[in-house]
């Protein structure tokens, strides 16, 4: 048998876990996953106007993007919305996590779970349509067309992302700590303020970062909810794609990528399971 011959090399242990071809496919996957992104980043440094022909290294597109007032405004808007949404989402998610974790099951807990995770379940386009209809009528009724709509929408779909790391952190916390605090005469509020909150902080920060990243990346809901002239960076880019593309879009993408990467790295450091890294 071919298989027997292949293993016939002396001293070569029969590898139980190996499946033929799997490593090759995995390597292809990793290459395919990164090749387009790397190409995109490389061409953001193209001196020429094209994203196909390489005309030498330059960072001029970054300056062009920076000096573009539309991009400036969109970037600022993105940051404002993401910051506000992350702050709101992580605050309400923290409260909800405290209510739903480390407590005996109570009537309605499943309903709260479902509610919190609802944005993960409903297709984004459906939520986008729903918010378009809902906010359109409010806009008509109140006349208010500010960033508030976008912030509420973003905060809402960020809640489950903020909730998950906070809940994970709470679940891994020793539940006797509050009891110990209470035993040492702390009121429930003091126990929360002095014990729970400091221990929970890394989870909250991690949750806020995830929420920030998610808000920063959003296209669909923003595209539907935004009023005229309220482009964020992603919707600005989506609009640009219809025109002739210059490496400016690559430059903006690269900047966003770097920001995401930094936030994610911090997130992983914060949520790293210390038991998994004994040294």
């Amino acid at each position, binding site marked *: 048998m071919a298989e027997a011959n292949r293993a016939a090399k002396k001293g070569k242990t029969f590898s139980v876990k190996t499946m033929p071809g799997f490593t090759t496919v995995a390597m292809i996957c990793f290459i395919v996953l990164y090749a387009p992104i790397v190409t995109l980043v490389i061409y953001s440094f193209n001196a020429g106007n094209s994203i196909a*022909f390489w005309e030498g290294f330059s960072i001029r597109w970054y300056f062009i993007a920076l000096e573009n007032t539309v991009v400036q405004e969109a970037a600022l808007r993105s940051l404002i919305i993401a910051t506000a949404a992350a702050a709101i989402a992580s605050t309400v998610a923290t409260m909800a996590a405290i209510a739903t974790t480390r407590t005996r099951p109570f009537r309605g807990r499943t309903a709260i779970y479902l509610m919190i995770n609802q944005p993960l379940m409903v297709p984004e386009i459906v939520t986008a349509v729903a918010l378009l209809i809902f906010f359109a009528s409010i806009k008509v009724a109140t006349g208010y067309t500010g960033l508030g709509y976008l912030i509420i929408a973003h905060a809402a779909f960020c*809640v489950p992302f903020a909730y998950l790391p906070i809940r994970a952190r709470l679940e891994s916390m020793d539940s006797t700590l509050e009891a110990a605090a209470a035993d040492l005469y702390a009121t429930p509020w003091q126990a929360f303020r002095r014990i729970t909150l400091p221990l929970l902080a890394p989870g909250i920060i991690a949750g806020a970062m995830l929420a920030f990243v998610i808000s920063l990346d959003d296209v669909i809901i923003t595209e539907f909810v935004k009023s005229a002239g309220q482009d964020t960076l992603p919707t600005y880019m989506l609009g640009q794609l219809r025109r002739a593309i210059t490496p400016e879009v690559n430059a903006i993408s690269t900047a966003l990528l770097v920001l995401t990467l930094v936030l994610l790295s911090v997130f992983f450091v914060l949520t790293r399971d210390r038991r998994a890294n004994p040294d």
Partner: protein
Amino acid sequence: MAAADTNTPAISSHEARVNTQRVRRNWLLSLPAICLLLIGASGPLLIVLIYSFLEPGDYGGVTWKPTLDAWFKIFFRVDIFDETVHLADAHLSIFWRSVKLSLLTTLITFAFGFPTAYFIATRSKRQRAAWLFLITIPFWTNLLIRTFAIMEVIRNEGIVNTLAIKFGFIDTPIQMLYTEGAVLLGMAYVYLPLMVLPLYASIERFDFRLLEAGYDLYANRWQVFRRIVLPLVSPGIVAGSILVFVPSLGAYVTPRVLGGGRKMMIGNFIELQFGQGQNWPLGAALSMLLLIVVAVALLFYVRAISGERSHG
């Protein structure tokens, strides 16, 4: 206020009071999140449902007259001249494309994602974290940017065509962008991590000692894979497939960027009703239809997840 569920009949009044307080506290703490989600996510879905039973307004919006017209129009059209009822071919072809591309996306991501997840799960503990991180980075990276990256690679002036012409494989660029193939490629690319992660979770829990038992009992590699690995990680396969299928079905950005206006999927078709189409009730009905399909898929997902737990 609802008292806590309990089967113990002789519950002391003090204990009951503490329970009630606890439940009230939990609800109060959850209230801000609930309100936010009611306004910013769940509540408006109800309005969509209502809109799907109304008549379209002249320039978008609705007229408050109840009708099943929108739901009817999803599948049928009435001939303007002889008023005969026909299947709405244009709509059906969009649905068909959505389902077809979503299934194909699921298949492709599985074909590539399974070996990848298996590869990661069979690394040493230290290496695993690094490989997983490599999968998670694209997962959290802006979907638009990733789609855009694919677009740059496959457009006529993109790197693939440029290189192919340079090396003389072809004379004129191959039109890849704005085809179904491009949409498929893009969706497989952006949703691959969604397949790999649950598969990894499942394979990582797999007891590899069972493989030794399989080989010991005369199974070859294929039989070990087919008869032992696949059945035992099937909950992960179901989970991954649904996690890819659901967003594929509702995809909007990828078909818009890579399919252009031509290769529409349900998501784009819904948007069209709120834009140029000016038919909000039809858009609302389509949204509800999509929601129903997704809900059914998610029910399977929940069952797969609980199946996973009972295996462990």
